[in-house]
């Protein structure tokens, strides 16, 4: 088309009139086809871009021309600098992780039964809007284990592993003979001497809180020179006598028991109870002693990780984002994987490569073009990340989770209403995305 136009306009071109008319008609046709697209591009793309750049040179109200001071503000305002730092973090971490996880998922789901089902499940997050995905993760990230799925899971795992701190979180003494609290430990009020016994009965213990190894509580027989005793769940279904070890009452295994000189707070000896809850201190010597289950035996209930607090908000948002996009990366990479000739992989195997070497030295390099598509696509997406940060991070954490796009929105519409500064942030974002775009365009051209 341009060829025709140039020939047509060449001076001294001795072309017959018919040809010239033909050329004009073709140019008109071209223009007619291009006009609608050009019209909308100008209205929706060119004009807003130019207007935004222009607006970014004015102050908040738009009355005063302030040159580049809005841009200066970006680099001097704390929350905006934080947004820039966070964006750098996002760019450094997320595209690489999404690509790597996508690759692993693609390879793992390559030759398995139910492949479609697995891939569908992994790709499903793409069907949800990023904002909705953010809302889901925000609920899962709640700190209270009774609300947030993540913390509930962590708590359950800790309990299952018998982790510290969460044992017997609600225990109380069964009789007045004990003193103390969960924070100090429970001690027998009356002093104990060598040859004596210490009974430490506790209630408020859920049946499930005791390990499966717990047996019928039994105090060891008293012996001279030693102090013996038992820590047990002093609760008998259908009633019983508090302070007495009775049948069907279980010992508390693994509780830490301390022996102190009366009046002192320093432990002379410590012991762990056995499965029957029994413990023994040997060769205690003479004098009065205080015996009790130390505070190590108890602990406050699991409080949960503060995912949405200022420290972990960035990882929390990133995890949600990676969860959404890893499926997408997997599908693209799986397509690339399917295109690799099986014979090449077999050739590597007969050449002596282990499966890992086949992956490292053949599969991965052959996938490089696909991996770079995914990586650059994610790079552009991550630079523009906005809605998932807004939906995962509560207002109180948004300063810490701030990213450029969110900062732009908050500055322009989120109460600050500074359209000059907001426009400047938008222009900065555009400038940052341009190199990645250029990279992609160049790659597309090379492929053609």
């Amino acid at each position, binding site marked *: 088309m341009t060829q025709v136009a140039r020939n047509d306009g060449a001076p001294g071109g001795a072309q017959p009139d018919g040809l010239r008319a033909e050329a004009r008609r073709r140019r008109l046709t071209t223009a007619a086809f291009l006009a609608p697209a050009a019209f909308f591009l100008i209205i929706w793309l060119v004009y807003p871009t130019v207007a935004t750049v222009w607006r970014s040179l004015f102050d908040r109200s738009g009355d005063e021309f302030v040159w580049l001071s809005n841009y200066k503000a970006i680099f001097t305002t704390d929350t905006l600098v934080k947004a820039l730092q966070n964006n750098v973090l996002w760019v450094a971490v997320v595209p690489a992780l999404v690509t790597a996880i996508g690759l692993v998922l693609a390879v793992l789901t390559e030759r398995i039964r139910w492949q479609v089902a697995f891939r569908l499940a992994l790709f499903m997050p793409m069907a949800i809007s990023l904002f909705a995905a953010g809302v889901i993760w925000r609920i899962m990230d709640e700190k209270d284990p009774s609300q947030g799925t993540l913390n509930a899971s962590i708590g359950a795992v800790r309990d299952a592993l018998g982790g510290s701190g969460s044992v017997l979180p609600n225990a109380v003494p069964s009789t007045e003979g004990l003193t103390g609290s969960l924070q100090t430990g429970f001690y027998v009020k009356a002093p104990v001497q060598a040859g004596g016994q210490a009974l430490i009965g506790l209630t408020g213990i859920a049946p499930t809180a005791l390990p499966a190894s717990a047996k019928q509580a039994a105090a060891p027989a008293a012996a001279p020179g030693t102090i013996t005793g038992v820590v047990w769940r002093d609760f008998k279904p259908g009633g019983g006598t508090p302070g007495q070890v009775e049948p069907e009452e279980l010992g508390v295994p693994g509780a830490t028991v301390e022996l102190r000189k009366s009046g002192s707070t320093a432990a002379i000896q410590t012991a762990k109870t056995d499965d029957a809850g029994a413990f023994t201190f040997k060769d205690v010597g003479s004098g009065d002693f205080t015996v009790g289950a130390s505070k190590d035996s108890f602990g406050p209930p699991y409080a949960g990780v503060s995912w949405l607090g200022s420290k972990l908000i960035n990882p929390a948002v990133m995890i949600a984002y990676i969860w959404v996009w890893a499926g997408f990366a997997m599908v693209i990479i799986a397509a690339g994987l399917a295109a690799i*000739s099986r014979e090449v992989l*077999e*050739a590597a*195997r*007969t*050449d*002596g490569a282990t499966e890992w070497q086949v992956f490292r030295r*053949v599969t991965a*390099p*052959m996938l490089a073009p696909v991996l770079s598509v995914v990586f650059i696509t994610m790079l552009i997406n991550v630079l523009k990340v906005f809605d998932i940060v807004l939906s995962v991070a509560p207002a109180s954490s948004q300063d810490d989770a701030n990213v450029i796009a969110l900062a732009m929105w908050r500055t322009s519409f989120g109460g600050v209403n500074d359209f000059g500064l907001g426009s400047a942030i938008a222009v900065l974002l555009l400038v940052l995305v341009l190199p990645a775009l250029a990279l992609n365009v160049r790659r597309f051209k090379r492929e053609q």
Partner: protein
Amino acid sequence: MAGVTLDRITKVYSGDQRAVSDLSLDIADGEFLVLVGPSGCGKTTALRMIAGLEDITGGELKIGDRVVNHVPSRDRDIAMVFQSYALYPHLSVYDNIAFGLKLRKAPKDEIDRRVRTAAKSLDLIDFLERKPRALSGGQRQRVAMGRAIVRQPAAFLMDEPLSNLDAKLRVQTRAEIARLQRELATTTIYVTHDQVEALTMGDRVAVMKKGELQQVAPPQELYDRPVNLFVGGFIGSPSMNMFEATLRKEADGSLRADLGGQSLTLDPELVAARTGLGAYIGKPLILGIRPEEIEDAAIDPAAPADRRLRGVLKLREALGSEIMAHLEIEATPGRTDDSAELEADLGLSALGSDDTRVATLVARFSPRSKVELGQTVEMRVDTRNLHFFDPTNGLGIYERPPADHPPAQPAATQAAGDDSVSQPEGANS
């Protein structure tokens, strides 16, 4: 270097598909064995089992003295050349060839020396820095060869390595591979569907059909003494002409074969060698005549009259060095399950009509023959080299079997005994 032994190797895919049944082969150290057969006969599956790319369902595979049924491919010390060459597209020619050595952590100068030696013998020195996509088909093929020879493995496995080359290059590369193999004296198992490759390259050739081994023999023996109808029809191009015939004893003691309206006197030499024929006098059998045994009688006027056939020329293909003449003759075609299979493999249906009284015969005439289309042609047949097959089991008829061993089973060959011949009426209706 080592021999390769297959002992009753079997491959059954899920769904009871038997790809390879009880394949036993003993390949000597340094031998060039060609596995040949129509597509789907299991030859590639057999090769892939030897390579360790396919699990072995049953039987025992030995490389050297080691049973390798469960040894992964990388530890079998074999090198494979694939039909698609399977070069690593992201590596240069040099790195493609060096790949296996690098994995084995060979010293750098050793790798360099061996890669360059291999590249020199394959004429690849000028292309070492190129990527495979910048090479021609023949060069890629040579890189694939280089990758195999540089490792000096116990055995080469080649899966139709020439089928992606054009005809001229194929002939050249064929000779090249045969030369290399002789120089290196490395045990080689070569899969092809091309009988010319099989016959020209192999020390021995193993013919397979539907997963079963038909015959293993040196090329000339395969051509001269096909163990059954299938091998007879498969080896030789164009294929052997097969007719239903009946043997008749003449008053002078000579044997004549009746083919419908015509008959041929068998050469006494042939009758003396094929003692097994005695049992078939007066009975139907299948007569095989190779196209190269038939000549235009006008070229050889001295030929005896009782060794001639007549037919109408339907197609004449002049190849310069010879003329392929397709004629219709009055005889009953020897149609069998095997011939149907061979035709399907070649993508032909029998030329000519379905009339069981008319058979098509292909002959190789001298280029000086003046035969013309539509003409009735008198042909002389060299009856010293005819082939006979039992119509019930398809086995070739050679020496008379020893009295206590009823069916004929030539030595060093194995035959599938269930090749039954369907009635021609049934095959054609």
